[in-house]
Structure formats: structure tokens, C-alpha cells
């Protein structure tokens, strides 16, 4: 296994954390360490966590600081090699056969190959970051298929042979943990469980992401969101919702709405489930007043 030590001039978790901060991503020590180790050891990085804690954002930020193109593969049930890896351009192949006449042509040539995200990343490992998003949405067949890719970074195309990456590509996988991933997949990766950030950090994230939001607003939103997360909701608000809520409330306030009211009227961007809203609405006033205090 190739241990790189430094990649793109980053030689420690602290340096990575600093670089991520410059790319508008506030990483805590755990994620900075995990991401640094993944880069340095040349292993894929598996990020798990509740929806909206910034898993995909982390991948984007990593791509940004490395100055690489982010190739995103969104997983879904039934995703297969033709959507993830490569596909042949059948109409073109068919036309070529028809037009060839007596000449011989190679219908499995480069011209007929359509690159999909994983092949694209394998072919340009030094200029891309591959994001395999929401792996838990895919089925077990695809997970098994990924195992080969993630351990050897090579794939075989029956008609053309094996494609191998010249160096280990940077791969980030995310999962919302709607189902348990296979142990073998976790084993091949550097793993990090992203938790909700601390109140302090979350307030900083809000102010960094939404520059129009005042500090007092950000703190109030964080306090209210923290309370909401302790309620038995079917969909707890994530960091993204916190940012949206702070921004929406600020917008309403600038339009003339008074403070507690601005929070209350924009609750729809934080809680997006009718049942959750109905559950919380009798206590919403008190909750917001408490948070704003």
C-alpha cells in the first residue's frame, strides 16, 4: 500500500482542517483526521451520519482544496454497471456496422464507449475526486460490485480488458444509514461517523454559509434547532435546515416581520414533515422564546 504522507501540500489533520476552513467547510477534529488519513493512506473515505450533517459538503470541500474536479455518482436502487461504470453507445455501434460495408471495424473501440462516473475517475485519478453519494440507497448487488473497485481500483470491461488507475483515486462515500452497510465495505474504507456539530460550531457554520445572518440570530436558531433535535421527530432538522432557517428568518425580519414571529413563520424550512409540525406547533412559541432568550 502506498502511504503518501502529504497530498497537495497537506501534511497533517490540522493543515487539512485549515484548508477546509478556507473552502468554507468547518471540520471538527474527527473528520479532519479521518479525511487526512484517507488521503494519506490512499483509502476511500466513508462518511456516515444523519441527513443534513454535511457529508456531501465535505466531499465538495475536499475536491475544492485539492483543486480537483468532483465527479458525483448518486446511488439509487437498481443502479448498475451501465449507470456507474460505462455504457456502449449502441445506436452509434449499429450505424457503424451498417456503414462499414466490407471494411472491418472495431465496434468496441474508444469512440463507442460512454464513460460513467467510476470509469472517468479511474482514468483521471490525479485530477478528480469521486463522490459515491448515499450508498445505502443502492442494493446489495451494487455494494458487492463496489468492493472490487474500492480494493484494487480497477474494473474490467469484458470487451476491452481491465482498466487500472495509475494512482489511487480519491474516493468519498456517504451513507445516511437507512440500512446497515456490509462489513466488508466498511473494512476497506477509512470510516467517520459525522454527528451533529456542537452549538458553537453550528453557529459558526451558519454565519459562514449565510453572511447576512447576524450572530444573535444564528445563536437563537442553533438553540432552537438543538431543542427540536431532542424531540421525537420523524425527521430531525440537519445543519442545512439550520442554515436555511436562519437565512429565511433574517429575510422575513428584513421585510418587516418582528423577531419571534420571523422565526415562527419560517419554521417550514426547518421542519418539513406535516406530522412533526403538528406535534411541535402547540409548544413552538415557548420553544422559540426560550431559544431567543
Amino acid at each position: 500500500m502506498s502511504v503518501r504522507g502529504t497530498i497537495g501540500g497537506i501534511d497533517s489533520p490540522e493543515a487539512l482542517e485549515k484548508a477546509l476552513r478556507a473552502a468554507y467547510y468547518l471540520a471538527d477534529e474527527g473528520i479532519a483526521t479521518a479525511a487526512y488519513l484517507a488521503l494519506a493512506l490512499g483509502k476511500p473515505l466513508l462518511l456516515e451520519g444523519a441527513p443534513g450533517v454535511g457529508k456531501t459538503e465535505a466531499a465538495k470541500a475536499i475536491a475544492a482544496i485539492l483543486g480537483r474536479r468532483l465527479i458525483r455518482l448518486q446511488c439509487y436502487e437498481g443502479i448498475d454497471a451501465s449507470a456507474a461504470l460505462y455504457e456502449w453507445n449502441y445506436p452509434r455501434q449499429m450505424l457503424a456496422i451498417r456503414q462499414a460495408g466490407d471494411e472491418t471495424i472495431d465496434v468496441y473501440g474508444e469512440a463507442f464507449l460512454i464513460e460513467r462516473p467510476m470509469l472517468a475517475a479511474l482514468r483521471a485519478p490525479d485530477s478528480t475526486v469521486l463522490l459515491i453519494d448515499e450508498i445505502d440507497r443502492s442494493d446489495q448487488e451494487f455494494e458487492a460490485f463496489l468492493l472490487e473497485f474500492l480494493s484494487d481500483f480497477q474494473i474490467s470491461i469484458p470487451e476491452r480488458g481491465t482498466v487500472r488507475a495509475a494512482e489511487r483515486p480519491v474516493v468519498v462515500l456517504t451513507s445516511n444509514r437507512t440500512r446497515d452497510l456490509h462489513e466488508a465495505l466498511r473494512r476497506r474504507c477509512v470510516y467517520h461517523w459525522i454527528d451533529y456539530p456542537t452549538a458553537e460550531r453550528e453557529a459558526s457554520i451558519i454565519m459562514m454559509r449565510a453572511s447576512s445572518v447576524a450572530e444573535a440570530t444564528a445563536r437563537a436558531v442553533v438553540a432552537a434547532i438543538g431543542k427540536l433535535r431532542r424531540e421525537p421527530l420523524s425527521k430531525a432538522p440537519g445543519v442545512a435546515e439550520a442554515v436555511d432557517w436562519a437565512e429565511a428568518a433574517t429575510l422575513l425580519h428584513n421585510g418587516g416581520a418582528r423577531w419571534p414571529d420571523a422565526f415562527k413563520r419560517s419554521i417550514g424550512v426547518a421542519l418539513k414533515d406535516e406530522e412533526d409540525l403538528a406535534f411541535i406547533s402547540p409548544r413552538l412559541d415557548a420553544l422559540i422564546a426560550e431559544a431567543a432568550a
Partner: protein
Amino acid sequence: MSETLQLPRAARAFVSFVALLRTNGFAIAPEQTTAFLEAIALLGPRDPEDIRQAGLATLAPPPERRAAYDLLFKIHFLGGEEILRDDGEDEEVVRLQEEGRGDEAAPLADEINESGEMAVRAEALAERRFGPDRPSDALRRLAREAPDRLPRRRGHRRMRARRGPWADLRRTLRESVRNDGEVMRLRRLKRRARPRKMLLLIDVSGSMKARSEDNLRLAHALLHATPNVEVFTFGTRLTRVTRALRLKRREQAFTAAAHLVSDWDGGTRIGDALQAFLAVPRFGGYARGAVVVVLSDGLERGDLSALRDAVVKLSRRAWRLSWLTPLATGSSFVPQTEALIAVRPFVDDMVDGGSSAAVVAHVLSLGQRSAA
């Protein structure tokens, strides 16, 4: 035997930490140990926190066992004195009697009365030993017939078929190359059927004592007959036992499950249990589009409206909701208890759950039913 490679002195503490984790039930592969050592070399053992983080990242303990990992780390590297309380999968257990929730509910008859003292835990926690293994005909039937007879749904993965809505261009082209580019026959694809998710909610309270053991055996058989099965037990707590039951050998699986579930033969708060189930997003997702089977007698001691509300939500998420109660005998069962009357309108099937044979028969008949 001087041929054996000696570990460098500095590495020994780390390798023995991995060994310690392994003996405490963490599954760690050799390659992960290698990565762990490389990670420490990279970070330079500057402070214990770095080592802890490196272990978290490379040894990948599952999030629900983070606390156990941290404790072992403390014991091994920092010389902590704490005794490891093996609460196994802490995140997989939801206690139902929290402060401020359900305080007004009637005291549970077969438990110590909660006298307002916080220190007194009203749950009668017990551990259960399973009787000797006796595979019954019903379980054998379940294992044999389940793969074919359980409900299926249309998946999103495609497979070749004689006829179907899509053309299989890949195969068609391959064949046409053999025929000098002439398409003799257009091959087709259709969507492949997949087994539908199943969710078993098993009541392990005192009133279900006679059935709970058999029900868990049944869950184990089902779990190994078909993929995508989730199993929870409830009484005064809600416990996910899927992982324990996934162990193939029955005795092992039941020992693990018996250890995990600590509210055997206690009281029941079905409403609170189902509410708690729905409130954990990860758990609630298991019910979506699933075949949901509740094995309970519906002798609710808690709040009826909470139960009703939970069942309404559950039935909205489920593909089909079955309630199997030992009280229902015969096909023309009319519920008599208040709880069952309250939930009857929202349950698709309310049938006999009094014997393994009856439960198996119902589960296997679900494949012929449609969504409700």
C-alpha cells in the same frame, strides 16, 4: 523459531489494543490493523487523542458501540479503572419510561410502583434463558416455503426476459455483430421482482410469556430465509434484535438476543413502544413499504390514544399491517379488549397468533395479498 517476525516494541501496544477490541466483540480485519499502524505512524503519536481518532477512522467501530470503544481505549492506553459495562448495542435500545413522559399512566401491575423517586427504576429487568432447541414443523415449513411465498415487489434492477418494456440493446447488438450487423431479433428486459421488506415487532411482556420465545425462534427462521427482515422486541423498552438474530447458529443467536433484551416478561406499553419506534428515523424507515407484522395480545396498560396514533402512522407507512394476537381464534374474531378495538380499523389483518403454525400460515399467505 527465530524465523517469526518480531513486532517492533512500539507497535505492540497498538496491536494488543486491536486484540482487546476483538475479544470484546469488535470485528476487525488484519488489513484494518495495518491501516491503524500506518495511521499512527503518519500522525506521529503526539497525544492519545490522535491515537483514539486514528482508531476510530481505521478500525471503524460501529457508531452504536462508540461508547464501548472509548472505554476500552481508556482502559488500555490511559490505564482507566472502570469496569466495562457491556451494554452492547446501546443505540439499539430505546427506553420508554423517560422522565416526563407517561407519568400519569397507571402503574404497571406486575412491577414495582414508581414512587416518584428517580433512582427507582420501575422496569422489572430480567434476563431470559431459552429452553432447549426444538425445531418445529412450522419453522421448517417457514424456512422451506418463505423464499417463494413471501410478498414481492417490482425492483428497479432489470433482467432479460422473453417480453418486457425495454429493449436489451447490449445483447441485441452482440448478436447482430455475429450476423454481420443484421438484427434478427430484438431482445427484451423487464424489472426483476424482489422480496419485500419485512418488519417484525414482537411483544415480550408478561402477558405474552407463553409466546415470546417461539416468536423469536420464528423471527430467526424468517431472517435466515429471506433478506431485508428487521426484528424488534418491545415491552417496557424497544430493542432491535436483528443483529443478534443474524447469527446463523440458533443457540448463539438466542443467547445474544436474550442478553440484549432486558425487559422480558414485564409490563407493556405498546403505544409508547410504537411511538418510540417511529421517532427514530433510522427505525421508522424500516416500516416504509414493508410487510409489518405485530405479534402482540394488545393488552395495553399505557395511553390508548398514543397507541391509536402510532398504529395509524404505522399503517400509513406499511405496505400491509398485520396484528397477530393469541386472543384471536377462528376466522370471525371480534376484538374485545379496548386496545384492539381501538386499532382494529387501521390494521389490515387481525388474526390468530396463538401458535407458531398459525403465525407461519399467515406470514406465508401474505404473498397472495395485495397492498392495503
